[in-house]
């Protein structure tokens, strides 16, 4: 007789994979993922309609600056126009906005800076205001410097931009260039992925349990297999669905990203790369530096850690969710039990930024030891290089807790699935542990 747990895994897996929604979610997932990567870039480069701005520049502060492609500046002669006339002109013309720079009494820059006005046919955009602010500040600074007898050229020369290259002290003199930004991104993304995976699939376990309970098939099944086998079969089967879905997603996302970046919007990606390079004074060095940084990350640990916490977290939470699902009759009733179960996970995500900023701090340490938060928090920390003993301790605690929780959840599950038409309280759940 084949082990019934394999039959259960098989059913749980096939019944989900063969659903149309699985196909849909699996295919749309990467599209959404690719869209997440591409759309912001696309939006950022999407030019706003170019605006024409007329400037009434009484102190000739900006003149003859022509603006830029997006915001062209045209000047009115201050001897022939005043603010009222200029407003009239704006109203009857094709211009989009009017910038008014008053000269005041004696061209006092501090007076001027407080009295500049901008009128638009529509609300002037933040971007336009930002651009004009920047232009004006630059000119007013210059004017102030001149007024105080300082040559602006000197100031420009004095201005210094410091770039620190940071290293992690290696053991045998092989100092590695540290890669904080990449580690941050890696930690954050993998942590989020684990959070998403745990939540998405644990809830499916809960739904599955509730489906069996509400369709009343569960008693038939557990007269053939142990309740524990049914619960574990469900957890493993749905976990397998998750793994398959995940692998397909990664594969498809990669393909999609490549296709889009090389065939559909090649110029966009070239631009992004160029923009990245231009932002750095040593543009051609960027690529090499990134490679150096990547080399400093222990990918074996990260990948092994990811796999471990991915499954560890899922098993732990899905057992809890299975217990919740068994205790309630309807999904609406599940809220009161779900909240306390999900709070640790949400806590781990909320504190993610603090953990990233101080990956070896006390908060990070304790959150990566507590088993309900460790899958996410430890994953965020892993790329930063964590002492091995911490990783093993956290892993051992997680595994230990998993077995304890599965035992307890199994007990609640065993009683819960046969309990109908009863609103269950926390007190009762604890009683069930002793049945």
């Amino acid at each position, binding site marked *: 007789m084949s082990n019934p747990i394999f*039959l259960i895994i098989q059913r749980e897996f096939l019944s989900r994979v063969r659903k149309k929604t699985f196909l849909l979610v699996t295919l749309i997932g990467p599209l959404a993922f690719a869209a997440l990567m591409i759309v912001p870039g696309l939006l950022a480069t999407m030019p706003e309609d170019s605006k024409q701005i007329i400037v009434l520049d009484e102190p000739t502060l900006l003149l003859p600056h022509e603006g830029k492609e997006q915001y062209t500046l045209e000047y009115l002669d201050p001897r022939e126009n005043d603010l009222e006339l200029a407003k009239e002109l704006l109203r009857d013309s094709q211009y989009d906005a009017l910038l008014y720079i008053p000269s005041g009494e004696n061209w006092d820059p501090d007076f001027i800076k407080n009295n500049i006005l901008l009128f638009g046919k529509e609300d002037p955009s933040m971007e336009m205001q930002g651009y004009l602010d920047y232009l004006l500040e630059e000119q007013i600074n210059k004017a102030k410097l001149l007024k105080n007898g300082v040559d602006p050229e000197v100031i420009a020369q004095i201005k210094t931009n410091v770039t620190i290259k940071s290293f992690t002290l290696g053991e045998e003199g092989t100092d590695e260039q540290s890669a904080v930004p990449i580690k941050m991104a890696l930690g954050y993304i993998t942590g989020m992925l684990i959070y998403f995976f745990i939540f998405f699939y644990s809830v499916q376990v809960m739904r599955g349990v509730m489906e069996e309970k509400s369709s009343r*098939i569960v008693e038939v099944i557990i007269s053939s*297999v142990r309740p524990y086998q049914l619960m574990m079969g469900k957890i493993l089967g749905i976990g397998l669905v998750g793994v398959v879905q995940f692998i397909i997603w990664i594969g498809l996302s990669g393909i999609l990203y490549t296709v889009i970046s090389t065939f559909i919007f090649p110029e966009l990606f070239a631009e992004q790369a160029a923009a990245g390079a231009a932002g750095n004074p040593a543009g051609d060095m960027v690529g090499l530096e990134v490679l150096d940084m990547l080399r400093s990350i222990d990918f074996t640990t990260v990948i092994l850690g990811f796999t471990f916490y991915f499954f560890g977290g899922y098993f732990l939470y899905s057992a809890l969710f299975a217990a919740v699902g068994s205790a309630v009759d309807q999904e609406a009733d599940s809220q009161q039990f779900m909240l306390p179960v999900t709070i640790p996970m949400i806590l781990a995500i909320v504190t993610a930024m603090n953990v990233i900023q101080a990956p070896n701090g006390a908060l990070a340490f304790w959150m990566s030891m507590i088993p309900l938060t460790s899958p996410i928090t430890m994953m965020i920390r892993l790329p930063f290089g964590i002492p091995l003993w911490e990783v093993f301790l956290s892993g051992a605690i997680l595994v230990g807790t998993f077995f304890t929780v599965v035992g307890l959840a199994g007990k609640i599950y065993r009683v819960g699935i046969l309990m109908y038409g009863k609103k269950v309280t926390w007190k009762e759940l604890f009683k069930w542990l002793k049945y």
Partner: protein
Amino acid sequence: MITAKKVSKEYSSKLALDGVDLSIPKGSIYGLLGPNGAGKTSFIRIMNQITAPDKGEVYFGSELLQPRDIARIGYLPEERGLYKKMKVGEQVLYLARLKGLTTNEAKSRAKEWFERLEMSGWWDKKVEDLSKGMAQKVQFVTTVLHEPELLIFDEPFTGFDPINTNLIKGEIQRLNENGATVIFSTHRMESVEEICNHIGLIDNGKVMIEGDLLDIRKHYKNGTFAFTTRTAVSDWGPHEVLSQKEDHMGYRTVLKSSEFPKELVITLSEKESLVAFEEVLPTVSDIFIEIVKNGPKPWNHE
């Protein structure tokens, strides 16, 4: 087939079973009877090893009940259902394989049953598209497909329509004739009286009485006799008349008599008025009420 010895089970301070001794003979159709909450389902779940007793033992045949016996039991619980989104055929195969059948065995037996119960076109239908009566037939097939030696039905006829009830009663009797032991558990005692040959009466977790149905009814007979006469008779002598009503054969009078009413039978038949005469045995519910009121009647081993 099943022997329970001093089985007790407690649920959070409520004693569901209190030292239950039962013995279910091989080949019998056994009625496990009692009101709601008496402990029937608790006992059934112990037989199915869904729960374990706190105290006492249950034997399957001559050996203690053990996990592999699951494959020898077919169980239709009171709370029953099917996976709504699954196809009928797949579902039947899945449940049969959980009971240890191979796919091929399960398939050929299922086909046979589907033909016998006129369900042949249903194989690829989804359960949610079946009517309630159709789903009940599928459930019945899943219960018996692995040819269990012991069949347990908990409240089997609640929710079954009359046609299915008869069909399934017939099938169960056929399975019993082929050697299966059958347990019916119900609180509606009259519904199984005609097909059971053994009963166990449970109340408040205790066995009130157990044994051969006919023996029990004979044991509890209390001198009740029924006369059916062509014309209405008003003089019944010293006997206490319990009821009188007209039926298709004439007038039926039920009365109590401390001994066999030989005189009455002779007098009435001489008048050619007597159509039928019988001694009325108490029904199981009568016996149940009697026991609850006055306690069990001791057996006199004369």
